[in-house]
């Protein structure tokens, strides 16, 4: 496409449509969305896999369970029969989807079924925490940047306080305190095992990372001619924010979403790995890696499989974030089209 044609296309379509069209053509976007879609789909199918295919309850200990391999019944947890007969080893991958596809963990539970359920929880917490983080950061960033003065000072110092703590240290501290007794705010009580707790904790610790750039962008926008003109015409603050400010910061927010969701997902996995995220018998990829740590020498797949899924999901989200950024950036888009 020539520069002239490109310019005509730009003026004939809305920026949103152009971005979508660019995204559809971007291989990074297609590949990452395919991978993400696949992971989300198999995670959503977890109950169907567990109950209809593997016929197992992945939340119950099954230390005395047996399964059939090549027509032979074998215990899921096998006591050593060689040497001094020390130790009990869970069954390894059978690569048979109907029976311990990825083997069993130390409680005799089907690792594949737990992996799929774990995916649901990790994705749910990561996405929910990411959205909460973005929404709160948007609110704080816009108010601080638009109002300036003492409102900005207070909100900025609040963000500084959260920012001053290393993310994981803050998340671990909050988790240790809240997961022991839960959280009660007025008549709302979140129990120690509630998913809402890790969602809130993770969502809160990343707010400064999004709110700061948004605030800076709003501060700049506020001084632009079109905003000053709107203020000059006597438009209400809410109208200015909704009509003039938000449309100009939405592209940045859209770029943040996949990156923050990936970060939240990684943080959830890390906290669950440390036993301060998702609580047993529920699973997340982090808890399954923790289970696999004790089986690293004999049954490495218990730890490797969730690790691979975390890497794939985080990489796909980051790749998609890059594609979104390029699609929403007119300069990059023009360079690409040229």
């Amino acid at each position: 496409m020539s520069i002239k044609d490109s310019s005509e296309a730009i003026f004939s379509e809305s920026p949103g449509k152009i971005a979508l069209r660019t995204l559809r053509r971007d291989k990074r976007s297609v590949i990452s969305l395919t991978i993400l879609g696949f992971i989300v789909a198999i995670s959503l199918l977890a109950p169907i896999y567990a109950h209809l295919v593997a016929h197992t309850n992945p939340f119950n200990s099954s230390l005395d369970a047996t399964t059939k391999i090549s027509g032979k019944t074998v215990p899921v947890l096998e006591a050593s029969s060689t040497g001094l007969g020390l130790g009990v080893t869970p069954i390894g991958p059978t690569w048979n989807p109907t029976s311990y596809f990825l083997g069993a963990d130390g409680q005799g539970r089907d690792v594949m079924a737990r992996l799929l359920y774990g995916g649901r929880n990790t994705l749910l917490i990561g996405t929910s925490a990411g959205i909460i983080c973005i929404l709160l950061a948007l609110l704080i960033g816009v108010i601080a940047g638009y109002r300036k003065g003492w409102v900005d000072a207070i909100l900025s110092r609040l963000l500084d306080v959260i920012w001053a703590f290393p993310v994981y240290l803050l998340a671990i501290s909050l988790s240790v305190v809240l997961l022991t007794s839960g959280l009660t705010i007025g008549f709302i009580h979140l129990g120690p095992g509630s998913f809402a707790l890790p969602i809130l904790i993770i969502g809160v610790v990343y707010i400064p990372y999004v709110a700061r750039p948004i605030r800076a962008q709003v501060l700049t926008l506020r001084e632009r001619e079109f905003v000053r003109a709107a203020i000059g015409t006597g438009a209400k603050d809410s109208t200015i924010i909704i009509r003039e400010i938000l449309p100009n910061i939405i592209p940045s927010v859209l770029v943040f979403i996949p990156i923050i969701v990936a970060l939240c997902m990684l943080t959830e996995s890390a906290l669950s790995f440390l036993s301060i995220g998702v609580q047993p018998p529920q699973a997340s990829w982090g808890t399954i890696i923790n289970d696999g740590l004790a089986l690293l020498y004999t049954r490495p797949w218990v730890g490797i499989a969730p690790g691979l899924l975390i890497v794939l999901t985080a990489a796909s989200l980051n790749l998609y974030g890059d594609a979104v950024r390029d699609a929403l950036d007119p300069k990059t888009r023009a360079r690409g089209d040229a």
Partner: protein
Amino acid sequence: MRRRSVVLTSLIGAAALAASALVGGTSSQAATAGGMAPFDPAHAGGTIKLVAAAAAGSLDPKINYTGQYWELYQASYDGLLGFRYGDGKASFEVVPDLATALPVMSNGGKTLTFTLRSGIKFSNGQPVTVADVKASFERIFKVSSPTAGSFYNGIVGATACLSKPATCKLDQGVVVDAKTNKIVINLTAPDETIISKLAVPHAVINPANSPVKDAGTTPIPTTGAYMFKSYDPNKSLVMVRNPYFKEWSHDAQPQGYPDQIEYQFGVTPTAQVTAVENNQANWVYDPIPADRLNEIGTKYASQVHVNPLTAMWYLPMNVNIAPFNNVKARQAVNYAIDRAAMVKIFGGSQLAAPVCSFLPPNFPGHVDYCGYTKGATPDKPAKAWSAPDLALAKQLVKDSGTAGQAVGIVVSDDDVNKQMGVYLQSVLNSIGYKATVKPISGNIQFTYIQNTKNKVQISVTQWYQDYPAASDFLNVLLGCASFTPNSDSSINMAGYCNKSFDAQMAKAMTLGLTDTAAANKLWGQLDQQVMKDAPVAVAFTPKQLDFISSGTKNYHFSLQYKMFVDQLQTK
């Protein structure tokens, strides 16, 4: 006491001998009836390297209460009495150490007379005198030794020392004569276990000028074959030969083989195993990780030693708060747990055995019975546990009216304990509760579950014998005196206090002074009686596994202090 803590043994006469005779060994190196072979200089020298994930706190022998360091104190510190250096049951025997002979008992068992050996010096060159002996007993109270109030409270003057430790004087309780080297210990009442209590590290003799506070990381001069050269809890502990040591009793303090013993800290259990496999270390302190057990049991079988322990893993249930303030709820847990499954989590049948009696097998008073197994009841018990009875457990929960209640399971955060917690959660959920697992640091879990303020409903914990007497299990863990509300030192974690049961235990203890067999029979009956109330659910009895490097020889296992570190040879 817990795994990192020591096993203290009472060896008064026939009772302890009978107990020790029952404790058989399955070590790959057969236990002998006698003590150590005579010292062979040809094998002396070299360095023994021990590895552990963490240090065990203060090095002060009057303060430290862990098996990890008591294992080292055997080779370094001495009391008037000591436990014999010997394999298996021989190690239960109390022998004279710094005293020339076992005490002469008089005044109806209330007075013990010793004579101090002469010519013995501390590792700083200072001679050991009777003044050091008296000061050492006073120091037990001055530094608030953890057993001051439980082991040594019977010494005349101890009550005042317990209330005002800083000014402790035992002028009437420990009477010494420098001219004759005589030491007289006066008790307020006869104590069937005093001999054993005088043989443990808290009663060792230190220089009279030792600090009257916890010495912490500063080594206190020793009398034994080794002394402590340096100690950094974050890094290492080094022991070297005591230059002033001359063997005075081969049974109590024999000459050691290595020139140096090094303990390295901060090594993960799996790295410890690899280090021993590669001959970079001689011995692994921590429990072998579950996924390395099969490997060492097959490839390194000749380097593995498995020995029985008189201990139990059990689940105390708080009888004072719901749902376990209902006896049916407690009985339901006893019926529901699959003890064989818990043994699997621990490492398999070679490392543990299911039990449901309170007194462990091979222990004085133990009776083979199980009231909580399929087909049995507490009134009509089976001989041994065979299988859980989930149907009966569910019915009991329903009958108790506690179904649907929330139950928190407090476990230590190491891998095995967490797995036990997750398994227990699954069981409790299956019989009608809403269970959650609360893993907390192993450093605080043991005290956390004792304090009633924390409202712990059920927990997973362990108890290792202090001395082979039934009172150390039943009276210590379920006696009213062991229950102190709002205290971290309330070892009766179930909060069980039954006055009638207490009175019968007192009767059994009194009977033990004159008729051990009759006393043990009574203890056996009390075991069955208390388990009808089910304040705890006993799961299994564990074994000790030692993994040593291929270049390490002369392994000996003491039922009292576990492995004799100083007898290991590298040459």
